[in-house]
């Protein structure tokens, strides 16, 4: 960049005059980017709701949607940090497949005694994931081997090990029910169900499907607590900013945002409650998403990752241990890949050689659709999550519509390209 950028005059007065509107405009444009994505998701959902004649939002389908895509979103959380840090990880799908195979072997084939307990196996698998991440991260961080190459090697290696473990082309299962609950389970209703509309019972004593409405009350209560917490913390942050004299977003915008957000959340909670309640995996995902939002927005380690991705040399000269940070980012990715692998295996109820095959591309696409920059330093957790859901809704909706898998790929590719072009165009305009 030239030291002399023409549209930035140095005179103080001109700047002062422009200051007010410029803040408002920048707040609006940054918000637009974030909301634009959520609005896009809603539009896509409404589109499929229409084309699938109302199937998409059916409680049972929403549960499926979450269960089918949760592993993509879980891995996207790790991938976001990897990409923000300025790297890429192509091995996540293979690592997930390998971990699924490892878990199945430990639970079903190998005589491990009490160590084949699903909980123990899961913990061991997460640790193995961390070690894989550390092994790849070590070469990237301390020997400066490009992450593209290291993880491409990892992609081949772990897919190979996965297939070898399973003995060629066979699958291993069935996995114990306790383990499958991770993906296909629902949280227990400790409060007890509430029947709003008593089910109609016909003469034969059989329930006529669809005419009764029983709510999973624990889900409703959890949902209400979450929405209230969301509104409360949003309001508190706002008050705190105002108390310090900093301009927050305009109050009406805040209210509308909170109301719309809460209404959407409550709608989804209601849908889940009228089926079998909150899927376990959604709870896991929700906790992880909150954790990663907090880490990236509020914690020093998150800030350091952004700084490293933005300018690694400057970060290093500011006292940031970029090597260790890189290693940690890849360890985190390894753990989340392992968790993704467990979720896939739990959903399928068995380990198959092709588990997670190609999912690294969905994960990376989710992060880029979510607005991350391929150059590093830019990207948001919420963006990656919404990006993941956009991919998921498209998969789900097109499958219900009966669109051929080949053409599904074409559409997903076009959406990815379109999202990034939109981003670049917006950036150049600003």
């Amino acid at each position, binding site marked *: 960049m*030239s030291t002399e950028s*023409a549209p930035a005059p*140095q005179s103080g007065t001109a700047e002062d005059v422009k200051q007010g509107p410029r803040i408002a405009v920048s707040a609006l444009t940054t918000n637009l980017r974030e909301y634009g994505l959520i609005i896009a998701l809603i539009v896509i959902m409404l589109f499929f709701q229409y084309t699938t004649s109302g199937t998409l939002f059916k409680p049972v389908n929403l549960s499926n949607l979450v269960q089918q895509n949760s592993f993509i979103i879980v891995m996207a959380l790790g991938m976001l940090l990897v990409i923000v840090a300025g790297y890429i990880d192509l091995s996540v799908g293979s690592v997930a497949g390998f971990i699924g195979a490892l878990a199945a072997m430990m639970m079903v084939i190998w005589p491990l005694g009490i160590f084949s307990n699903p909980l123990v196996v899961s913990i061991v698998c997460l640790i193995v994931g961390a070690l894989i991440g550390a092994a790849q991260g070590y070469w990237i961080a301390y020997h400066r081997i490009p992450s593209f190459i290291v993880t491409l090697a990892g992609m081949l290696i772990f897919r190979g090990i996965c297939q070898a473990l399973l003995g060629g082309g066979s699958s291993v299962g069935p996995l114990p029910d306790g383990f499958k609950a991770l993906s296909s389970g629902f949280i227990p209703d400790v409060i007890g169900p509430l029947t709003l509309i008593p089910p109609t019972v016909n003469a034969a004593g059989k329930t006529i499907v669809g005419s009764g409405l029983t709510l999973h009350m624990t889900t409703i209560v959890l949902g209400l607590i979450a929405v209230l917490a969301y509104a409360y913390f949003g309001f508190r942050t706002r008050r705190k900013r105002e108390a310090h004299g900093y301009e927050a977003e305009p109050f009406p915008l805040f209210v509308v945002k909170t109301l719309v957000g809460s209404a959407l959340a409550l709608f989804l909670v209601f849908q889940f409650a009228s089926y079998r309640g909150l899927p376990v995996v959604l709870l896991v995902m929700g906790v992880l998403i909150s954790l990663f939002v907090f880490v990236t927005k509020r914690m020093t380690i998150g800030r350091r990752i952004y700084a490293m991705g933005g300018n690694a040399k400057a*970060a290093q000269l500011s006292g940031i241990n970029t090597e260790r940070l890189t290693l940690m980012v890849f360890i985190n990715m390894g753990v989340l890949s392992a968790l993704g692998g467990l979720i896939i295996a739990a959903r399928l109820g068995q380990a198959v050689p092709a588990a997670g095959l190609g999912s690294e591309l969905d994960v990376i696409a989710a992060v880029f659709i979510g607005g991350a920059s391929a150059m590093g330093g830019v990207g948001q957790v919420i963006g990656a999550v919404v990006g993941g859901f956009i991919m998921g809704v498209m998969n789900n909706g097109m499958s219900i519509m009966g669109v051929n898998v080949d053409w599904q790929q074409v559409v997903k590719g076009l959406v990815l390209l379109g999202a990034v072009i939109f981003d670049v165009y917006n950036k150049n305009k600003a």
Partner: protein
Amino acid sequence: MASTILEMRDITKTFPGVKALSNVNLSVEEGEIHAIVGENGAGKSTLMKVLSGVYPSGTYEGQIVFRGQECHFKGIHDSEHIGIVIIHQELALVPMLSIAENIFLGNEHATYGVIDWNANEKRTKGLLDKVGLKEDPKTLITNIGVGKQQLVEIAKALSKEVKLLILDEPTASLSEKDSQALLDLLLEFKRQGMTSILISHKLNEVNRVADKVTVIRDGRTIETLPRKDISEDRIITSMVGRSLDDRYPPREPQIGEVIFEVKDWSVYHPIHAERQVIKNVNLNVRKGEVVGIAGLMGAGRTEFAMSLFGRTYGRHITGEVSLHGKRLDLSTVSKAVENRIAYVTEDRKTYGLNLIDHIKHNVTLANLRGVSSRGVIDDMREMSVANDYRKKTNIRASSVYQLTGNLSGGNQQKVVLSKWLFADPEVLILDEPTRGIDVGAKYEIYTIIARLAAEGKAIIVISSEMPELLGITDRIYVMNEGRIVGEMAASDASQEKIMRAIVRGEGKKAS
């Protein structure tokens, strides 16, 4: 009487919301060296972009007449075609290609796309002779220094049969010696009848070579001075619109005891392990003292500073550093920062800032602990810190949420300074703190340095601009080829004395 080669009349260029140029007039005579000066943001580069067709005809108002013809350039290609060639501040060479390949890039001697390398290299040889560069045309750009790269750029311009050569800050990253050589070359071209436009911040250079100086301020032509009226003071007055009695803020040094000391510091090259880059350097800084390190480009000053600061340069580093008589462990950057040493890097865009993040995040980066507890950042505290330093260092920005990549050079430098001030150092090493920034911003940086010294900090300034060192420091070390070859009080130092120390140091090495 020479004829007018270029006439720009009433050039007005508007960007959304900003008038970058308003009714600028420039008239350049055949065979002269015409300097254009002005503060950053005054509109010099914009004017040159209009002239070279970067902003195509129609996006601005006014007329361009070149050799009697009115011109309507659609792009750079058009202007180059009739002989106007601009060499930008940031060199546009491909590092992994050879000199010959770079010179004829996009303009190769070729038949049906097949390149005739012999013809290219032969012509390159001729061009390199003209600019006085003794290098094999096959040498890769990455293997030659910035000074020589600049010469390659000029050779490239010559290959296009240039009638009007425009140089935008050609000496900004060159050493004194290379700068002199470049200016001599310009004078040589002038003798051969070439016309050039020189954009520069370095008024002594302008003073030396220019036949005329046009001063631009706030997008307007202020005046064009003929040779006989050119003097630094005259130009500065015209540039800033007020008279700067003193280019350096007044200060009364209050110097205490020695607090920072480096003993027998030796460093070897990170790749060529047998090459010693820093040789037994000893230096000390007193409380409240500003110490300068003078030297030519490549003297080892930056390498010395970086090897001190968390061993970010070099291998086999030996020596001792102490603060208040206590030996320090500076083996990592974070230890150096904990021990209250700060190093403001030389190249702010590459080493100093995260350009895609805003001011607030940049200011707190070196001291995140100062705005967080148990790893959680207190947003409000960070906000007030950022605003505080924005005021203290007078960063001109719409808010602390402005991206640092969109700031001018001077304001970027103030952000980097703020970052290190917030880390609360006792010893502050500043490497070329005013390179590429305008006179007004320089004065502000000097004021900050003076204030820090008055607060009792120990300050080391590395600078290639000798007048600057003479103006703001109390004591000057002269460094050459990795050695300290002289030490003098700023009050009895002069540019000649410093140069003599350097030359003597070189003589010593030869014997």
